[in-house]
């Protein structure tokens, strides 16, 4: 009892758990679980012992437990065998009915390799040796109808081969929906790298003269002055408007106004007055003139108080609208007064009394300042841009030269390859190389070397980046 218990506990030959079979076995295919007669003594000892006794005898009571276990083992084997055979039968049936369908999934059934394999493999070896002739002929058919093996089967599985086929179909995108009848799945075309290189191409293309021309055009922009020079301060807008108004009135009152420039001056007193007023405001009120006149006036103040008073009143009226009595004087003054400020300034500078540097820049006002500031900025930017363009231009010319050398080098390479092929052919024919050919080779290689060196030197130039 103890012995049989021990044998029960030990994993028996037939019941070793080994769900994965070695590759050699799986390749051979269909496995029908069966305990062969010759394995019985090993796997079912009590059973065999019972068989040795006649059928009419009584089974030994103490063997009951063991017999139970052995019978259960047999039962399991039979049940599995039944399943396997049933599956096979159904598959053949299906194949028979549907001959188009390739049954690559079905007939490859993998049996679990068990310790039983050891007793059975010599058996199969024996059987296979006997069937060697037939094996050779049946090799072609092996994928479909493989040799049957008698082993204990753990699970009915599809062979890894069939599974791989199935899995490979599953993994391929786009084929899944197309059904499993597709012979060889086309791998999905991967387009992304092509797209990438296409997008990058414009930036990597070799330079041409056209690019140089483009650069030249760009540089031209910066050659001339950016903005026109700031014009002098024009007449005050009130002057201009007044002039325009007068024009209109005259045109309105006098249809022949175009020809009357001169008499215009001698027009109505009112007009004259208006004109005088505007001019007076403009011409005479320059600071230099004022200072001069005031200086002169003060001198006269001492000599002739009456005149001074009159002159004072005169001078004081400079900035105001003159009365009618004044108008005559102012008129005559006016004729001389046009541009007086400028003339005084000029005289003083010529006389050496005053210097240009003494004059504060009275052209200054906000707009002028603003314009000057902006012009300054623009010129700075323009300078920067033109410098960059110049550098780019230089680099481009360099690059073009380099490309030229490269092209020459490529051509030489091609020639060398051709020569090499010819040389090989000649050598294959076991003919010695002719001296011309040798010369050619030397020449080509020497040229290649020079060009390559030249290229090396040129590549040393780096485009400095700020």
């Amino acid at each position, binding site marked *: 009892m103890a012995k049989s218990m021990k044998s029960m506990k030990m994993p028996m030959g037939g019941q070793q758990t080994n769900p994965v079979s070695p590759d050699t076995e799986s390749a051979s295919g269909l496995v029908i679980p069966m305990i062969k007669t010759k394995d019985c003594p090993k796997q079912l000892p009590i059973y065999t012992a019972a068989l040795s006794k006649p059928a009419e005898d*009584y089974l030994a*009571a103490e063997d*009951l*437990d063991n017999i139970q276990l052995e*019978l259960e083992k047999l039962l399991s084997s039979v*049940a599995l065998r039944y399943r396997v055979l*049933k599956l096979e039968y159904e598959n053949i049936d299906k194949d028979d009915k549907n001959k188009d369908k390739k049954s690559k999934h079905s007939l490859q059934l993998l049996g679990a390799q068990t310790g039983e394999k050891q007793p059975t493999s010599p058996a199969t070896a024996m059987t296979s040796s006997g069937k060697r002739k037939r094996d050779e002929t049946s090799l072609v058919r092996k994928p479909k109808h493989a040799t049957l093996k008698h082993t204990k*089967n753990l699970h009915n599985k599809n062979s890894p081969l069939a599974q791989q086929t199935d899995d490979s179909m599953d993994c391929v995108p786009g084929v899944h929906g197309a059904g499993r009848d597709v012979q060889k799945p086309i791998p999905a075309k991967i387009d992304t790298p092509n797209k990438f290189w296409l997008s990058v191409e414009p930036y990597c293309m070799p330079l041409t003269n056209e690019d140089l021309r483009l650069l030249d055009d760009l540089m031209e922009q910066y050659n001339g002055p950016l903005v026109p020079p700031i014009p002098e301060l024009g007449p005050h807008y009130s002057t201009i408007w007044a002039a325009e108004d007068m024009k209109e009135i005259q045109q309105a009152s006098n249809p022949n106004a175009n020809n009357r420039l001169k008499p215009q001056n001698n027009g109505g007193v009112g007009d004259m007055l208006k004109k005088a007023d505007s001019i007076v405001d403009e011409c005479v009120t320059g600071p230099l003139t004022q200072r001069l006149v005031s200086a002169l006036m003060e001198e006269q103040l001492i000599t002739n108080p009456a005149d001074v008073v009159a002159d004072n009143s005169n001078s004081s009226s400079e900035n105001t609208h003159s009365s009618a009595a004044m108008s005559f004087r102012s008129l005559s003054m006016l004729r001389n007064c046009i541009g007086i400020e400028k003339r005084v300034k000029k005289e003083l500078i010529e006389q050496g009394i005053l210097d240009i540097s003494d004059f504060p820049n009275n052209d200054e006002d906000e707009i002028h300042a603003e314009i000057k500031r902006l012009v300054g900025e623009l010129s700075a930017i323009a300078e920067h841009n033109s410098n960059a363009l110049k550098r780019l231009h230089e680099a481009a010319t360099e690059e073009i030269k380099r490309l030229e050398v490269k092209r020459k080098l490529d051509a030489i390479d091609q020639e060398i390859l051709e020569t090499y092929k010819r040389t090989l052919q000649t050598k294959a024919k076991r003919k010695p190389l002719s001296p011309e050919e040798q010369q050619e080779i030397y020449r080509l290689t020497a040229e290649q070397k020079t060009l390559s060196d030249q290229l090396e030197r040129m590549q040393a130039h780096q485009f400095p980046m700020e």
Partner: protein
Amino acid sequence: MPLTAENAAQQIQERLKDIQRLIHQIDDERRRSETNINGLTRAQQSNIPVQKMKSLYKACLQDAAVEEDTIRKALEKIHEIRSIRNERRIQARNAGNKEAIRRGALMKMVQISAQTLPLFVSKPGEKVPPLCGAIPAESNYIAKVGDNVAALVKGVEEEENWILAEVVSFLHRQNKYDVIDIDEEQKDRHVLSKRKVIPLPLMRANPETDGHALFPKDTVVMALYPQTTCFYKAIIHRLPQTATEDYEVLFEDSSYSNGYAEPLPVAQRYVIVYKSTKKSGSSGGGSGSVSSSA
């Protein structure tokens, strides 16, 4: 009708004879199957018409069916013998024949009963019945007299343990089981509600044909601690690969760093579904803490 000793012996003998006969029959059928299968093998290697192939397969299938049938019959007989013996035992116990069983012998019995639990081998398409392997009993199932169960009983210090017990009777009116600890030294008899009694499986599941009827790996279960008669909380570590192999389970053990002890083998019969109790009846698991029957 109570079974007398002679009666029992006679019936057993009859069956033993039947079994012997059946064994011979089985062998004949097996040989026949083998011949046919060999023929099938040969036929597959040579190119024979499909129809002939099909007929060969059919023959083999038939052989297998017949053989299976005979084997099942033989096993049935064995089962009958066991139940007769069991009945005799119960009768003897009821008659007051209390034989003291040593601990060693008790453990052996526990082991044997697990090993000789009938194996269920399903036919194609057959569903695994309840109380086979991991398949639980139906909710209205009532354990039979003499069935082994796991019973939640209160110990001396108010702690609750699931112990291995045998059903004495079922009290219909109270809806309670009368169970007895199999370790008869205790001479403990408990009356417990149905909730506190879990019937143990009546059949083993065959991993080769019905692997799904086993507890999956990492399931929390209750398992009988080896060499004890108590059930403790455990985790399935490894499934049996053949009909005679045991589960390997990890019992809860606070003395180990990960909280679980080394894997221990437990027969299919003594692995049942985990049932949590309020007082966590699985407390004091593992690490040599033995049941109340120690």
